[in-house]
């Protein structure tokens, strides 16, 4: 409940900020009666109305049996997973596809309960395999990065 209120209020504030951002949007010269700011403002207004209702009277969340309530360990794991995804995104171009996916993928496999050696083997093989499959066989260009030297 409290979380839902917090979320509704946060999103409401975001709506307000975006509406302020949208206010000066005006076409320099225009042939049509509706300018570029009417539609976003309409959507933000409707969203704001819905969110205010939700903030005042949050709906109950039904928990299924599979989902245990959040605890500290799960939150830490999720935080770690997000960091790994960001590392993947950040190193994708500078290091190249294969090193980046190994760097992010092996610890990620550990997060999901794999042991070091099998994780390392599976992720390394898959990242090389996926590189060959996508870059060589399917013409999706992927950065080589550090391994650029091997190309020539």
């Amino acid at each position: 409940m409290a979380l839902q209120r917090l979320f509704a209020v946060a999103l409401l504030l975001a709506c307000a900020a975006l509406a302020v951002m949208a206010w000066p949007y005006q076409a320099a010269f225009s042939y049509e009666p509706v300018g570029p700011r009417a539609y976003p403002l309409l959507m933000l207004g409707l969203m704001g109305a819905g969110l205010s209702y939700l903030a005042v009277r949050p709906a109950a969340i039904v928990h299924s049996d599979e989902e245990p309530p959040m605890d500290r360990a799960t939150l830490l794991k999720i935080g770690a997973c997000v960091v790994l995804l960001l590392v993947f995104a950040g190193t994708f171009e500078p290091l190249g596809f294969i090193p980046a996916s190994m760097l992010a993928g092996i610890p990620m496999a550990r997060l999901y309960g794999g042991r070091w050696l099998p994780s390392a083997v599976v992720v390394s093989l898959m990242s090389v395999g996926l590189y060959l499959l996508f870059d060589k066989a399917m013409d999706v260009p992927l950065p080589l990065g550090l391994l650029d030297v091997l190309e020539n």
Partner: protein
Amino acid sequence: MDTFSYLGQGFGVALSPYNLVTALCGTLIGTVVGLLPGLGPINGVALLIPIAFALGLPPESALILLAAVYLGCEYGGRISSILLNIPGEASTVMTTLDGYPMARQGLAGVALSLSAWSSFIGALIATCGMVLFAPLLAKWAIAFGPAEYFVLMVFAIVCLGGMAGDRPLKTFIAALIGLFLSSVGIDANSGVYRFTGDNVHLADGIQFVVLVLGLFSISEILLLLEKTHRGQEAVKATGRMMFNVKEAASVFAVNIRCGLLGFIMGVLPGAGATLASAVAYMTEKRLAGATGTFGQGDKRGLAAPETAIGASACGALVPMLTLGVPGSGTTAVMIGALSLYNITPGPLLFQQQPDIVWGLIASLFIANVMLVILNIPMIRVFTRILAVPNWALVPVIAIITGIGVYAVHATTFDLFLMVGIGIFGYILRKLDFPLSPVLLGFILGGLMEQNLRRALSISNGALDILWSSPITFGVWVLTAVMLTVPLLRLWRKRTKARRALAAA
């Protein structure tokens, strides 16, 4: 009989060796993707969009590939719900009710092939319906102007909330988030940069594939971290793989009824496969009465939801192809794919590019037949995939998602955006917001704004163009009805609760 000659032409397109191989690859990839936890039809189709584009497939082949992947994913989801009792997505929840007990009784192969057969009949009925009604609807839709389209899209969004049932407000908010996100980027009419924050990468707007993969794949990866069950043993598919004539005949009436029901539900925007399968199961359970063993492995209980899912999946293509208004998450993804190819679905598509429309319809037939045939030799291979543990699977899914996103524009900004959207999607999910309305809103948003502005340009700013024509007025009335449905349901629940309180 123009329609039949067009359909013949469509089969000509779909049966060309190149497209047959495409459809075969699509069904195989789709089945595997549907099997894996965390990947459903929506992200399966979205992942393949940039790849189909990079491969340089011609538009009709790309669309056939995506349709085949879609059907394959639905089938793959069935395997995990029958053998593992884990529904891959919301629409297959009903399949587990009788499918898993059947598998436990040693009829796993029969259950799988019977479900494929039911889905095939459902798709067949829906495809026939599509062949009959789609050209009529397309002819009628040509009379639609921008005002009519705008109202129709409002109706589609409202339907989504009205049909969703238990949480209409959250569905509306989710749809509004999507509608708003579509306005990010440069405004085509005036050249104003909206909400880009001077970021060059956002000038083009949020890329559709990035949004889909972030919302669905990344949030699912995060969600998988907290699932308690892992490494559940799949029921072994041994013994007879194929259903026999008697079994097929015993569910034939169910197939026909649920096929018609599923088609109608599929055409309605917002209803979709989830609702169709639930309604079909409940109806058949009531019809069977005391003779049924629903919940303990009744064949009718398996056939009913599967037929309805198959029929509604094809039925959902009707509004998408004729009006250009998607009714479900997956058709929204397909519209996204079409717009990459610069094809605008709508009434004119039937006249201008009959190859694409009828080729797609014909390939749906073919992909369904392929699935029934593939099922028999491949089922053992597929069940082995189910045994792959999460620790090996999830990093690979994450990496492939990254490739899919990177393939669109080749910028790392998109990768960061994907992670951000993924976290947002995860929070939405945890707070019980449905995600597919966000996607649908995102697709409809751009169309909606364009049509609204065009309509008001025609009327020179007078708002009454939005309700003056008979079509717009009629659609507004339907919209009002749809808006009252959740309120009515709420009111009925309250009076019931009050009465129960008074009785106690």
